[in-house]
């Protein structure tokens, strides 16, 4: 899950995609390679967990309602949660390689990789480390406004140069429906992600609206897919997951 831009919802989408795929009966792992800002542990209420070693490598932390989603993040390796990871590229690259090869992931149907924003060390190293493992492709996340889309265009170029198939673009934070009066306001504009997909000739996976229940759910580390099926972001998120499943079935 990639974006040129920070703060657009990559970690949110990675988490919800994992939960939705799990809900559809798939075996899922999440690899969080945002070494400076690892958000996934908190989003799944395992921020206080630690990892340990076994014969086949590091054991991931198992999350989700049935403890069946495997998660690895640098968040689990920090002594204190507020510790900053102030590493230059080479050290980050080495850890990413370890996360791919030295974690006992077990048999998975999907490994979702959450990345930091940009097109730099983490992204190059992740693609290199995962190349032997049949990369299905990349999902690009943007918010609707041009300033975000402008960075995601560059991310598309990165994918092309890296030979990474583009599964599609998600337009996140796309509209907000007031819970008091149902008025819809396009706080971050509207349509930029869809236009970019059209312009670039890649699939458009859908618009996910701003949903305070989703934000709250992530804050509390809850399973949004199980617990909030009537919430405004639910249909879009499950639709994205379904498209990923369909694509992977066509690919195999």
């Amino acid at each position, binding site marked *: 899950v990639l974006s*040129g*831009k*920070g*703060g657009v919802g990559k*970690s949110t989408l990675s988490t919800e995609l994992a939960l939705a795929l799990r809900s559809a009966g798939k075996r899922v792992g999440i690899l969080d390679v945002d*070494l*400076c*800002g690892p*958000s996934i542990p*908190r*989003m799944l209420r395992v*921020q206080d967990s630690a990892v340990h070693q076994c014969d086949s490598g590091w054991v991931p932390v198992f999350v989700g309602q049935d403890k069946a989603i495997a998660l690895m993040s640098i968040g689990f390796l920090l002594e204190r*949660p*507020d*510790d*900053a*990871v*102030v*590493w*230059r*590229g080479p050290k*980050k690259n080495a850890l990413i390689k370890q996360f791919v090869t030295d974690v006992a992931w077990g048999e998975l149907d999907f490994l979702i990789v959450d990345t*930091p*924003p*940009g*097109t*730099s*060390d983490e*992204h*190059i190293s992740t693609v290199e480390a995962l190349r032997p493992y049949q990369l299905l492709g990349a999902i690009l996340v943007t918010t609707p*406004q*041009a*300033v975000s889309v*402008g*960075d995601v*265009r*560059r*991310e*598309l*170029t*990165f994918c092309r*140069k*890296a030979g990474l198939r583009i599964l599609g673009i998600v337009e996140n934070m796309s509209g*907000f429906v*007031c*819970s*008091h*009066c149902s*008025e819809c*306001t396009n*706080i*971050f*504009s509207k349509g930029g992600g869809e236009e970019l997909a059209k312009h670039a000739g890649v699939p458009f996976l859908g618009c996910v609206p*701003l949903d*305070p229940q989703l*934000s*709250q759910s*992530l*804050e*509390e580390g809850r399973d949004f897919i199980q617990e909030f099926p009537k919430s405004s972001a639910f249909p879009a998120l499950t639709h994205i997951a379904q498209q990923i499943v369909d694509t992977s079935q066509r690919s195999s």
Partner: protein
Amino acid sequence: TFSALLAHGLAADETKQVALLDIDICGPSIPKMMGLEGEQVHQSGSGWSPVYVEENLGVMSVGFLLSSPDDAVIWRGPKKNGLIKQFLRDVDWGEVDYLIVDTPPGTSDEHLSIVQYLSATHIDGAVIVTTPQEVSLQDVRKEINFCRKVKLPIIGVVENMSGFVCPKCKNESQIFPPTTGGAEKMCQNLNVSLLGKVPLDPQIGKSCDRGQSFLAEAPESPATLSYRNIIQSESENHCANESPRFRALLCCAV
């Protein structure tokens, strides 16, 4: 967004010379936000010329070195560091009162390098931008620790996207809920200043997309009021702490 508006706000005083340096090498948004998309950098005898928005507001970004909006800068750390050095050394900024540096998210090469390269001069400090929810704050605490580790003074924290007032019914929604007390509680706990809270305003995104100053386009917005208060106390603080050198401010986000 904050860097761009801070630059506009400070440059409103025409007696001050403001420089805005965008070191987000992979995601250079500043040219678009300042209405300078498509501009190129010119070389002169004295080095690279910044691109000027106003006479007293000059901008430099890798965005000006790219020939197409689709061009990606796929560089590892050392090459990014090299460009940052060039931006500081080879750009003919002229006499500057304020240097604002917009950084990418994180605590990595760009952040280490800018602090290192500016260490010979005096960095006034860092302004750290966050949103209210814990998922954001947990990264901001790391950013604060980074600043402390590298001895970068922290001017304070800005809580952005702090609530949304529906234009129709005027009820407020916490789209990004401050479940752990928001930036206010965090600042209290970590003994840093909360510079202000900026609410969501759809006009902000629109103005940024059109390369216009939101402060000029929506002078009555509560968000503008917040920005002006923050900028006002910024410039007052610096007048109070007189120094012959220019003010250097790093804007970090996570």
